[in-house]
């Protein structure tokens, strides 16, 4: 996953390298007497790698320009936290400054997709990014008997 502009630059360079290499390998394969299909087969792994990198770059660009999903399952929250940081244009250094923690700590959290942090801490991260995450949970309907042994509870409210 690309998490910084710097990573993106590196990814673009790598993409260009792969394309060059694929072109060379393809030409060599043809020169060695392979037909088109055979040449394409030789560069298939490179093409796969290229497509993957392209996807990553495109995703990063999309997020970087502020495109975020408005709603997603909770298990994607950690992934999302990093995306919110990218979309808000906040660097890891800046986020760590706002949170009052070491930069390495944020780095580690992002690598672990925030899986180890508590909900309270994740909420503080959103706050530091000027965002708020609410969680929608479908609870079973309150099942209260009409005999009302909980009268006080209701009355109290």
């Amino acid at each position: 996953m690309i998490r910084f502009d710097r990573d993106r630059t590196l990814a673009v360079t790598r993409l260009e390298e792969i394309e060059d290499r694929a072109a060379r390998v393809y030409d060599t394969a043809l020169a060695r007497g392979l037909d088109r299909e055979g040449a394409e087969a030789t560069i298939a792994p490179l093409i796969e790698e290229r497509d993957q990198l392209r996807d990553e770059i495109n995703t990063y660009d999309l997020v970087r320009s502020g495109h975020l999903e408005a709603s997603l399952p909770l298990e994607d929250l950690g992934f999302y936290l990093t995306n919110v940081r990218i979309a808000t244009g906040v660097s890891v250094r800046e986020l760590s400054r706002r949170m009052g923690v070491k930069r390495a700590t944020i780095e580690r959290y992002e690598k672990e997709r925030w899986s180890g942090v508590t909900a309270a801490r994740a909420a503080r991260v959103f706050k530091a990014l000027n965002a708020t995450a609410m969680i929608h949970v479908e609870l079973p309907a309150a099942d209260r008997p009409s005999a009302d042994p909980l009268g006080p509870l209701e009355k109290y409210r």
Partner: protein
Amino acid sequence: MIHSRRDRDKLWEGLLAERARREDIVAHLRSAETAEETIIKAVRSLDAVIQAKEAEIAEYDKMLTAPDGAETWALADLPRVFVALRDRKRMSQAAFGVPLGLRGNQIARYEKIGYAGLSLKRLVNMLDAVHLEARVILTPWTEPSAQAVGDAFDGAIAAATALPVESEESPAEEAP
């Protein structure tokens, strides 16, 4: 400390009794010609007890509901959803703990602290275990904090005041 609905109801009954006692004492004070120092002190200490109990009940009630009363929880409050779930299902702590792989006393401990301290990963697994589907709804990050709104507002005012009055009529397309 309230650990269950039963605890809460007991506390509530105690609270009612203390409120009634307070009423009695106050009524007595009103009818008496002179206010005795010791009685006033008694009322004051009773007030402290009542307030403490009210606070404790309110704290427990808070655990049973999302802050807005709906099904949307602030992320930081989300762990408390397990307290609310057990309450809604009217299950014992032991029964509730089964799918979570926790014993009744562990559930009791967790409820005491509103399930604080769970990692996101654990939280997701636990929600899964009790078949609760949780979705994140992001308040758009483009909606800035009050501070940022203030800053942006100041900025907008600065920009507006810096512009000549005619600028309202000059089309934006012509700007370089």
